[in-house]
Each structure stands twice: as C-alpha cells, then as structure tokens.
C-alpha cells in the first residue's frame, strides 16, 4: 500500500508522529519486566558450559564419565549429542552462516577454534554441582599454533583453521586450503581512468579492532523438552522464529514441536541474532527429562559470543581541484572469527554509497582467525569501511581548502544517483542532513586550543522481510495487537500508534504484545532496521481487513450496497440515500454484536515487506584532547538522519543517540586485547571500556524526513545508520584538534599520548 492509498483509506493521524507513552515502560521501571534470566520452571536444572582454554587445539578425546557419575548431575552433552550438518549457507541474522559451521560453533567437534569455544555442557541440580562437574570432564587437547590478526591470518604460512576451506571468488580455483574464505569485489566505471583525472589523490591504510555489541543483558535460555519432543524455550533473542528453525534443525525436530518465547531484551544490536545457549539447553533438557536454564556470565559473553570484525582497510580516493570525486578505491580485510562469514560484503557495498562517484572499485576479503565467530553489529561492515572513506574525504577537503560539508554536498548521492553497487537510488535524504547540520548553532560555535570539530556522513540499506502481525477487537472494543519481532527499540509503541490511527481508536485502548512462535506465522528477526518499517505495513494490512469486514457487516445490517458505506475515523458511516437513516457505528458498537454478525473481529497482516529505503545521516562532533593524558572528551554531538517518517520521534531520537554513543566507544576506547597465547585479556566491562552516561554529553538529534514512497506512512528504518558516521567524525575531529591523522582505532589515551609525543606535541606547546 502506498502513502496515497493510506490517507484515502479512512485512517487518521492522531498518534503517529507523537511521543506516546511506551506500553512497556511501567514494567521496566518497576523491575517487573521479565528478561531472559527471569524465567523459571518447577524442577529446573542449572546448565553450565565447559569452554576451551586454548585459542586453537585439536580435541583428541572427551571423557565425561566422572562428571556423569557425580550426584546431582542429570545430563552431560558433548559433540556426540549433535548430529553433523552438511555444508549449506543459511541466514544467521544479517549475515550468512554455514550450517556445518553453526553446529561446530554451538559445540566444538574436531577442534576448539577460539578460547571460550564450547566443548561440553552439564545440567545439574545446583550451580556448585554444575561447576564441579565441569572440572571432572577430562578433555585431551593437542594445542596448535593460533593466529588472531587478519593480515597475519592471510599469510600463506599462517596457522590453518580449516583444511577444507578454499578461497571462493578467485580464479583459478585454489587447490590449497586457506584462512581466506572469500574474495568479493564491486566495480563501477574505470578506476584507472578515474585516477588519471584526479588533481589530488589521497591514500591511507586504516586498522580497526574487534568490538563487542556490549548489551547489558547476557544471553539466557530456559528449555523444557518433553518425552515426545515437544519443546518450550524462553530466551533473550532478536529472532525467536529463527531460534526455533535453527534449534529444530540441530536437534532433528519438527518446527511445529518447538515453541519459542522471546523475553524482554536488554540490548542486542545484532549480537543476539544467532544461537549459542539455546540448542545446548534443549539438548540437556531432552537428555535430563527436566527443564534446564542457562545464563552466560559477562566473561562468557566476551569470550564466546560474536563481536564485530577487526579489520585492515586501504582507501585511495581522487578528486579534481574543484572537489569532484572522480575515483574511489578500497581494499577491505575483515576478520570473520573462527568460521567464515564476516560482514565484508556489505562493507564493500557501503564504502562509497553516500557519494556520486563514476569510478569505484572495492575489494573485500573474508578471513578466519582464532577468535569467536563474528556476529552482526548494527549496520554490519559499514562503520569500518565508511570510517576509512570519511577520513580520506576529510583529508581531501583539507588539501583542497574546501569546507568538509560543502565537499560532501558537492558529491552527495541523490535520487537518481547510480550506487557503486549498481542500482539507482530513489528519494534519499543525505543532502538534507548535511544542510541540517550546517544550520546548527553547533557548527558555528568557536573552538579553543586542543579542541577539534569533525563531520562525517553514513549510509545503510535497511531491509523489509517476512512479517506477521495481528489485530483483534475485543468484546469491549479495545484492541489487542500481536507482533512477531522482538521489541528492541520501540516497536510496540510505534505499532500501537499505527493501529490506533488506522482503526480510529484511542492509543491507550490498543495493547501490544510480542507473540511467541506458536501464535503467529513466520517473522524474520529484528534486524536490518526492519521491524517498525515492516511491522507497520503488516498492521496496516490487518487493519484493512478489519475495516473491510466491518463495512461488510454494516452492509448486511443496513441491507445496503458496499458503495453506501465507508470506514472513517473509527466508524462505519452510511452514505448517500441512507445517510440519515442509520447512525454511524464505532468499532466498540460492532464489538458488542460481533457474535451475532459473523463472529470475532480481527485481521492478520502476513507480508514479505519490500520497498525498504536506505537511511543516510550526518554527524557533527566537537571534542577536546587532554595533551597530558591523551584522554579525549566529547564536548558536543549532533546527529542528523533521514527517518522517512518518524512513527515515534522519541524512539527514533533514541536510536540516533544510542548509535552515536556506541560509535564513540568504538572510536575512542573499545578493543579486544589478546595476549601472545591468543587469550582475551579484557573480558569484562572494567577493562573493556564502553562509554557510560557520564562519558558523553546529550546527543542532539535532528529528525530529517524524506518520505519513503514505498511505505504507507513514508517510514524508513533508522536503527543502524547512526553507528556508521561516528568513527569518521571523531577521527576527523581528532585531526582538527591535534593535527594528527589517526588511522588506527580505538584512539584510546595511551595511543593518543604516544602519537602526541612522537609528533613532539606537548601540553606546553
């Protein structure tokens, strides 16, 4: 349904675009909300995982007999409890993963491929017994050399993780295995010819460290498997339908036998789009014939769940002296972790997406190394490649003496621009975000010594996908709304506003919940910035069914023809010759006589939402460097981003702010630190330093709305783009403040101090 059709369909716009009270607010502020670890069942057991202490080791043997014999232990599982899976790629969140790798990531088989890799698991009657049981499992390892860094992992003499992994995407096909899983490339125009036209060329190499999504709530799962295989599972996840599919597959169950409930979620950001504990809890429960609950510690979250890639990126750009970009080249090398499947492909496609450049060539390598398998993290792949490009754009601006916003404006992608990855853009809002930032007081505020200002833009595609949502009119005229994608950023409030406006009922009479997998048809996960976009389309469809049904009932009640009735602002109204004969009937009126006029009133939207429009944004940051400590303080931060249409402005602003803060952490502090033994040294929030509220100022958010013509209300997804510009914006501000171009993230205090000293810059200067 298009925007024009929506407004002609009898809906009002009273709640959409306003800051309605969030329906989950009371439970969350009172502590009543139930997160993954808050579910319990009578008779449940405690599940714990034995994890590899080695970064790379062959598993020679596993003897669990002593653990099994320990009183209080009800089940022990190892690789032998999971059937092997054939090599087949499946969607694992926003990236693809091979099922052969999924089963090995869940429980190691031939090798332990990273410190923290699950090797066995136990279910026991208490935590203490479970811990003792883990110590009794005798695993014999043959320790192997390991490799962590992506460039080192690409060397021909690097320790090999998989002897059946051959680089795809190269000709001729290699006959030797490699840690390079894949080479990808996109090309537009003629890159060599483009560089020949350039008056200025900038080439730089950049390095980023792996960073974790940093969700406050660790992974948790509670599984109860009965003797006939019927399974109930509660877990913290961004996609309970995919959890159901993957777990059913790994345990050899019919999908219909598995019912998954998604708990309230304490953050996901892409990191909860794949399975870890869920199949283990199910396998233990099946063996023990009792429910099993498993909750990760923070250390396990860091050591055994997927962060995003670390990477090495080389960028070379050329521009004319007038500032026109004529050539853009990039080579991206991304860590995938222990199994193939880094987000290098979207990184390649996004690198130059904000710009109209005739000649582009971007090459990407997907490289395995002895770290946890990477998972999606908010616009996966894009922050890294766009950090590098935005840094080089800034250098070009300086070399040409051009304003960095004006330079971006000159080269901005617009409607009709051919993207580097092929198709032409529809309506997009990059230019509007650049203009919005330029008009701010922030942009025009003077700076002092050791303070710097930086700007950067960013792009993410967004997606739609399979979505089911239902609306049911209750006997008292209130409306129950059921969505199927976990609410990680305001979905329930947004969909309730859409339903209220579509049906013409008060917002507080619409009660939204997230249904379990037994209550709705398949829903793809919450990711790709899709849930408000596609969920609202499904609700519009469900509401349309209700409106059509009520009009049909009115026709029968009033004994008239369809063209004599219309749905408008919550009522079915008689038209024309019968207008004076009957009173309009509200939804509540129909609810009272639902049974007598055909039965319960409801609608279900079942769609594969298409038409997601990309969201582009521009960030502006001021920071101050302490030359004595190297510490960087963010002074001021402004985000301008195209939301299409903000269903709930406060939530959209929250997405902008959250993405910006995560980008600040990524740029300034966060990194995985490995020892020479391949073991993670900072597996906790004390030493893995993420920003907290006192580290950042209020993030100013500017909502730009360039309507997406393919959505009934013009909505675009917004959740991922905000993490893309911060890395480049902050690096550019650092250059402005210090005169030093930092090309390695994070720009943490020791690195900043070292760079200042090497440059001979001191506090006294």
């Amino acid at each position, binding site marked *: 349904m298009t925007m024009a059709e929506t407004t002609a369909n009898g809906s009002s716009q009273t709640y959409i675009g306003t800051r309605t009270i969030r329906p989950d607010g009371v439970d969350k502020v009172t502590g009543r909300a139930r997160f993954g670890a808050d579910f319990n069942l009578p008779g449940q057991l405690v599940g714990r995982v034995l994890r590899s202490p080695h970064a790379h080791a062959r598993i020679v043997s596993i003897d669990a007999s002593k653990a099994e014999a320990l009183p209080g232990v009800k089940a022990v599982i190892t690789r032998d409890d999971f059937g092997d899976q054939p090599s087949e790629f499946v*969607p694992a969140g*926003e990236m693809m993963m091979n099922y052969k790798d999924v089963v090995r990531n869940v429980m190691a088989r031939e090798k332990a491929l990273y410190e923290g890799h699950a090797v066995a698991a136990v279910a026991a009657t208490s935590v203490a017994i479970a811990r003792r049981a883990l110590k009794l499992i005798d695993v014999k390892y043959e320790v192997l050399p390991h490799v962590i860094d992506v460039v080192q992992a690409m060397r021909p003499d690097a320790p090999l993780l998989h002897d059946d992994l051959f680089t795809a995407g190269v000709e001729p096909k290699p006959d030797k295995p490699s840690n390079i899983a894949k080479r990808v490339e996109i090309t537009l125009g003629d890159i060599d010819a483009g560089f020949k036209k350039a008056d200025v060329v900038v080439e730089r190499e950049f390095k980023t460290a792996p960073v974790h999504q940093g969700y406050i709530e660790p992974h948790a799962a509670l599984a109860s498997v009965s003797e006939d295989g019927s399974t109930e599972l509660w877990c913290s996840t961004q996609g309970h339908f995919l959890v159901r*599919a993957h777990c059913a597959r790994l345990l050899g169950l019919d999908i219909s036998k598995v019912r998954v409930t998604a708990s309230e979620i304490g953050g996901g950001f892409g990191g909860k789009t794949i399975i870890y504990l869920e199949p283990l809890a199910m396998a233990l429960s099946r063996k023990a014939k009792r429910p099993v609950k498993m909750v990760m510690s923070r250390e396990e979250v860091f050591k055994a769940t997927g962060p995003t890639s670390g990477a090495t990126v080389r960028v070379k750009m050329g521009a004319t002296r007038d500032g026109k970009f004529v050539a853009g080249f990039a080579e991206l090398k991304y860590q995938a972790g222990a199994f193939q499947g880094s987000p290098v492909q979207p990184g390649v496609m996004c690198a130059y997406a904000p710009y109209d450049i005739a000649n582009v060539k971007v090459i990407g390598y997907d490289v395995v190394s002895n770290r946890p398998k990477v998972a999606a993290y908010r616009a996966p792949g894009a922050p890294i490649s766009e950090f590098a490009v935005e840094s080089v754009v800034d250098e070009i601006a300086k070399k040409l003496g051009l304003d960095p916003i004006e330079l971006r404006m000159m080269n901005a992608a617009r409607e009709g621009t051919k993207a580097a990855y*092929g198709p032409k853009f529809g309506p997009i809002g990059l230019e509007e975000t650049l203009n919005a930032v330029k008009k701010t007081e922030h942009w025009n505020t003077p700076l002092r010594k050791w303070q710097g200002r930086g700007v950067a833009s960013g792009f993410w595609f967004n997606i739609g*996908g399979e979505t089911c949502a239902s609306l049911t009119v209750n006997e008292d005229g209130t409306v129950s709304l059921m969505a199927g994608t976990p609410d990680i950023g305001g979905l329930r409030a947004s969909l309730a506003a859409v339903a209220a406006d579509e049906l013409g009922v008060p917002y507080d009479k619409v009660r939204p919940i997230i249904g379990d997998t037994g209550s709705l048809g398949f829903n793809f996960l919450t990711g*790709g910035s899709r849930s408000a976009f596609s969920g609202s389309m499904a609700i519009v469809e469900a509401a349309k069914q209700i409106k059509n049904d009520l009009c049909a009932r009115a026709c029968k009640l009033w004994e008239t023809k369809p063209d004599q009735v219309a749905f408008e602002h919550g009522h079915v109204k008689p038209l024309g010759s019968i207008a004076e004969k009957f009173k309009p009937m509200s939804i509540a009126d129909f609810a009272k006589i639902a049974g007598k006029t055909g039965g319960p009133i409801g609608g279900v939207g079942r769609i594969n939402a*298409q038409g997601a429009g990309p969201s582009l944004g521009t960030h502006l940051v001021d920071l101050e460097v302490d030359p004595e400590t190297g510490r960087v303080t963010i002074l001021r931060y402004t985000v301008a981003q195209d939301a299409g249409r903000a269903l709930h402005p406060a939530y959209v602003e929250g997405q902008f702010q959250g993405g910006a803060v995560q980008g600040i952490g990524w740029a300034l502090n966060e990194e995985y630190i490995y020892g020479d033994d391949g073991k993670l040294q900072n597996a906790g929030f004390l030493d893995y330093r993420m920003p907290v509220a006192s580290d950042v100022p209020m993030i100013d958010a500017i909502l730009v709305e360039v309507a997406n013509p393919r959505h009934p209300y013009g909505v675009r997804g917004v959740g991922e783009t905000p993490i893309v510009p911060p890395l480049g914006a902050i690096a550019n501000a650092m250059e402005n403040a210090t005169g030093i171009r930092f090309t390695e993230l994070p720009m943490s205090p020791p690195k900043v101090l070292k760079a200042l000293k090497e440059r001979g810059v001191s506090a006294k200067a």
Partner: protein
Amino acid sequence: MPRVVLVGNLAQITGGVAEFQLSATSVKQLFEQLSDLHPALARHLEDGVAVAIDGQIYQDTLLEPIGPNSEVFLLPQIAGGSASGDYSRRRARNPACTK
C-alpha cells in the same frame, strides 16, 4: 527487453559475462532463464540474491514483476531471508534430519 546486470562475484560464475538482455517478466522467470543459460548460477540464485528492479531492492520474492524496459541488478543478499522455506528444502535433501 529488461537489462539484467550481475554485481560482484556472480559474474565469475558466468565466465565474466555480467550483462544480459532477457525476456523475463518476473523474478521467477529471470532466475529460470539465467539458470538455463548458466546452470552453475542456479545454486547461488536459490541460496539467495537481492534483486534491484528499477532502483528498488527486493529480497526473497519470486513473484515481483519486471517491466519490459526495466533495469535489473542481481546483488549479494543484504540480509538473510526465510529460514522456514530454506529449512523445508534442506529437510527434503538431508535424510539425517528425520524427526
């Protein structure tokens, strides 16, 4: 006839041929015609590609129409599609998955 362009690594499978003029009127027909021309493409099309038709990106939709003058790009999939549909196909092929 619609102009069809393969983006990224897909052209390697067709021996470097990246552009086609085909008579397809839907994504389903497009996949069938491409698979007839280059059978090695079939698995990649089945595993999942994104299809951009006149600038609009579609994923996991076989029935989307293609106009006679459309410009069509086959792209790497931006995010995964339906696990349910893939699951049933894999169940049929995998005798190990019996329950």
